[in-house]
């Protein structure tokens, strides 16, 4: 068996295991979907009150994207947190798989789960508001979600360090990262309303470019080719953030092995 085949098989192990977990906790999945839809609706109804369909569309996109980011981050953070809770972290760390294989398997499932979950929310909100998607360029929206996902994988790997090093509240600390992205990326408002120093941060957030590209694709029907200004930052960030995430996680793992933090359960 080639090394690549072994690593792919091992990577799929995390995908399959997480699918099994989703299946076992199906009641929670239904509850979470209801929660996500209610949250996205309550935001989008602000647009309905104003009576501006473009605003409704923009808020729906912001709310569903925020939902996507939350789902992906929680899955990736829980890659470590749940294993620590169940006591399996040491067994997974002992297995003969590269950490990149481990993390990519987990993040791949998180992305697929996040896309399915978010698509469900988007469909229900579209039906609720009776929006016409005839002009929407779904390919553009999909491409931006895909491009942004590479960056989110890298950021997610860095977020997974927190539950690795902070046993009790590490998973909750990933909320800090999410909330900063929410603040600076123009999820519910244009980044132009931010103070200048925050606008600098917004330009460093991949979510800013994803949201801009998805909105232009779904609301204006823009093609990917016309949105190069949003594409290239995502490509650069994706290329940089995945290796950076792997490097940072590797450093954190070595620290955890030196200080005995892998042992802690709970």
């Amino acid at each position: 068996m080639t090394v690549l085949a072994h690593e792919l098989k091992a990577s799929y192990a995390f995908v399959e295991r997480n699918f099994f977990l989703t299946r076992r906790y199906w009641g929670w999945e239904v509850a979470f979907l209801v929660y996500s839809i209610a949250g996205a609706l309550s935001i989008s109804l602000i647009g309905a009150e104003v009576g501006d369909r473009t605003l409704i569309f923009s808020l729906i996109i912001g709310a569903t994207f925020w939902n996507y980011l939350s789902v992906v981050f929680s899955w990736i953070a829980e890659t470590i947190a749940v294993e620590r809770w169940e006591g399996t972290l040491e067994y997974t760390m002992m297995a003969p798989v590269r950490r990149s294989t481990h993390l990519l398997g987990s993040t791949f499932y998180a992305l697929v789960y996040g896309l399915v979950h978010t698509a469900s929310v988007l469909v229900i909100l579209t039906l609720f508001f009776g929006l016409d998607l005839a002009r929407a360029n779904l390919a553009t929206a999909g491409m931006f979600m895909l491009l942004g996902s590479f960056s989110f994988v890298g950021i997610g790997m860095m977020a997974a360090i927190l539950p690795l090093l902070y046993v009790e509240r590490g998973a909750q600390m990933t909320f800090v990262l999410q909330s900063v992205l929410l603040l600076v990326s123009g999820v519910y408002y244009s980044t132009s309303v931010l103070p200048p120093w925050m606008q600098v941060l917004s330009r460093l957030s991949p979510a800013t470019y994803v949201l801009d590209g998805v909105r232009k694709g779904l609301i204006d029907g823009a093609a990917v080719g016309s949105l190069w200004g949003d594409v290239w930052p995502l490509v650069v960030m994706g290329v940089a953030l995945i290796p950076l995430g792997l490097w940072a996680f590797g450093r954190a793992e070595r620290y955890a092995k030196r200080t005995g933090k892998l042992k802690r359960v709970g």
Partner: protein
Amino acid sequence: MTTTLIPPPVPTRSPFGPVAAGQSAAAPALGLPVVGTEVPAVPALLVERATKRFVVDRRKPPVVAVEDVSLLLPRGAIHGILGANGSGKSTLIRLVCGLLTLDAGRVEVFGHDIARDEMAVKRLINRVSVDAAFFKKLSPLENLSFAARLYGLDARRGREEAIAILERLGISRKRVGRPIEQMSRGMQQKVAIARALLTSPTLLLLDEPTTGLDPRSKLEVQAFVEELRATHDTSIVLTTHDLAEAERLCGRISILNGGRVVAEATPDRLKQLVAERHGQPPTLEAVFMTYTGRSLDEDVDEEDAHDD
């Protein structure tokens, strides 16, 4: 007061020198006869002057968990590690697994250095610890399928082997699909053993595998370990608080106290030594009490003090 039977290791490649086949190289140091021709066999496990300290408070000196521990396990042998709670047994196992990094010394598994060739070591080892750690909502089969894939087993073959091992351990086919949380502690521990065996480890680290099991389950697990030694090419390190278990299964025993090896020999030799040198009854209980430097009364006093 503790008694060290092993002199400080000499700074050679191995603290014990060349190894006689089927015998620990520490034997001469213990005054035991060396039998057979010396064979430079690659040991299943070589721990050389391993040291691990933990900083729990930067204002205080680090806590020494394992200090200058050397151990040599020939292929196919079972080596027991005894010691009181907190003596460093589990830390030593974690060092061998690569779950902790060494502060000093080295660990080799079948000639592979854990620090330099971690992935090769990982392919050769597996571990069963006192707590059967699983995704409790998943079934034994789902948990074992995950392990099988991680270790590169074909999915179908892994599934068939998992069922066969579980059945051998007394878990019927109809139970393998139910969540592990519905199983008893003993059953869960058997699944943990099955998980380790599924990956065909050549070095198996059993860290108190029968603690908390009822007598029947304990005997079943012990019988399975014996069968494993007889039928598979598996070398085993066993930590346990069950002295009868250690006597039944282990060819040699190391006794850890305060992170250091204070005695190492065959069970019979340890009993003989404690009778000859300390005037104690020739039992492993007497060996344990003598070389951990404690009496049962001291343990009870200490617990009372903690309670206070």
